[in-house]
């Protein structure tokens, strides 16, 4: 019976084609370094899931943010685990994405026809860093507060548009409830949305072009 159900669905969805095209693509002989993109994606999904769980208790308001994080760490069963994964996963993701970029650079995989994949990759690196920047403020402790003060102040030193950028990031001249709220919104909705879309295009291009050869001595 399961076979019948599977066949019925497969005729309409095309699982077998999907499988052949997505997971069973022919690959040139490569190395473990080529798994770092998939590792980045795994970390993105992991951050997404643990992040969703954190929002069950986390409260983005100056009155509650610090206490709610404290509560996650000490009051809720396994809160330390969920937050721990999200916390260390964030650092690891930046690291893995960066090494992935280095490998693409050293194997010269960014050349024709993969320039666009590389450009999208730059977007992925920037948005990943943006996730780190916006997420860092959310616990609303001293370190978070001053790191964001400094970070937005740096953005403020840009000629001409600096002052505007600083105010747009902070939602006003100083750090306030508005800053926390807009960083939260960026951290859980806007940047992940952009990140997911970019990953989609990135993967599409990779499937379209196939993986590049590991360069040989005479390349």
């Amino acid at each position, binding site marked *: 019976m399961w076979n019948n159900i599977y066949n019925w669905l497969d005729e309409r969805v095309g699982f077998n084609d999907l499988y052949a095209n997505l997971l069973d693509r022919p690959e040139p002989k490569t190395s473990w370094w080529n798994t770092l993109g998939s590792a980045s994606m795994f970390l993105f999904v992991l951050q997404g899931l643990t992040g969703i*769980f954190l929002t069950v208790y986390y409260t983005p308001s100056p009155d509650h943010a610090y*206490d709610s994080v404290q509560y996650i760490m000490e*009051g809720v*069963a396994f809160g330390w685990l*969920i937050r721990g994964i999200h916390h260390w996963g964030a650092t690891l993701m930046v690291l893995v994405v960066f090494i992935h970029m280095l490998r693409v650079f050293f194997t010269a995989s960014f050349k024709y026809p993969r320039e666009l994949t590389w450009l999208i990759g730059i977007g992925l690196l920037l948005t990943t860093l943006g996730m780190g920047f916006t997420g860092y403020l959310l616990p609303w402790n001293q370190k978070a507060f001053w790191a964001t003060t400094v970070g937005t102040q740096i953005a403020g030193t840009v000629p001409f548009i600096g002052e505007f950028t600083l105010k747009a990031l902070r939602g006003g001249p100083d750090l306030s409830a508005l800053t926390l709220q807009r960083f939260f919104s960026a951290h859980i909705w806007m940047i992940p949305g952009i990140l997911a879309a970019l990953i989609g295009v990135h993967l599409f291009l990779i499937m379209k072009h196939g993986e590049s050869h590991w360069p040989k001595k005479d390349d």
Partner: protein
Amino acid sequence: MSGSHELSRRDFIKVTTGIIGGLIGAVVGLPAVYYLIDPALQAGGKEAWIPIGKFEDMQLDKPYSFSFTRVQVNGWERTASSFGGYAVRKSDKPEELLILNSRCTHLACTVNWNEAANGYLCPCHDAKFSKEGEVLDGPPPRPLDVYDEHRITEDGIIEIFFKEG
């Protein structure tokens, strides 16, 4: 290798990935479920004697309204919840007081004594209860709940036994 009973290299990879992935999923997934439902598992049920008023202030056959708040710690916050009810005096004996809970037995709105209607009315779905708490009209499945333990202090104050949760 096809046709032989040995595991092919590909199948081996598939099975190992499945098992390891499943293990990782369980190690993180089960705590995650616990994390979600944790507040529902917290033991509530603190008990207290709550003063509701002087016995001498409660008139015969006229429901005496009382209310009180209890502060509970929910998460990182202290929340005050209100409770209330009506004490109905039947005689000179304090132990014969009938102390009703004003929480509607339908879906938990608060009922109010209405002199003209000679009953407790619920604003939510138009229930009506008699002075003694019996259902006269509307959807409630059972009479109003009673606070079934109460005592009188030396100063003539009625206290009810209240259990949270």
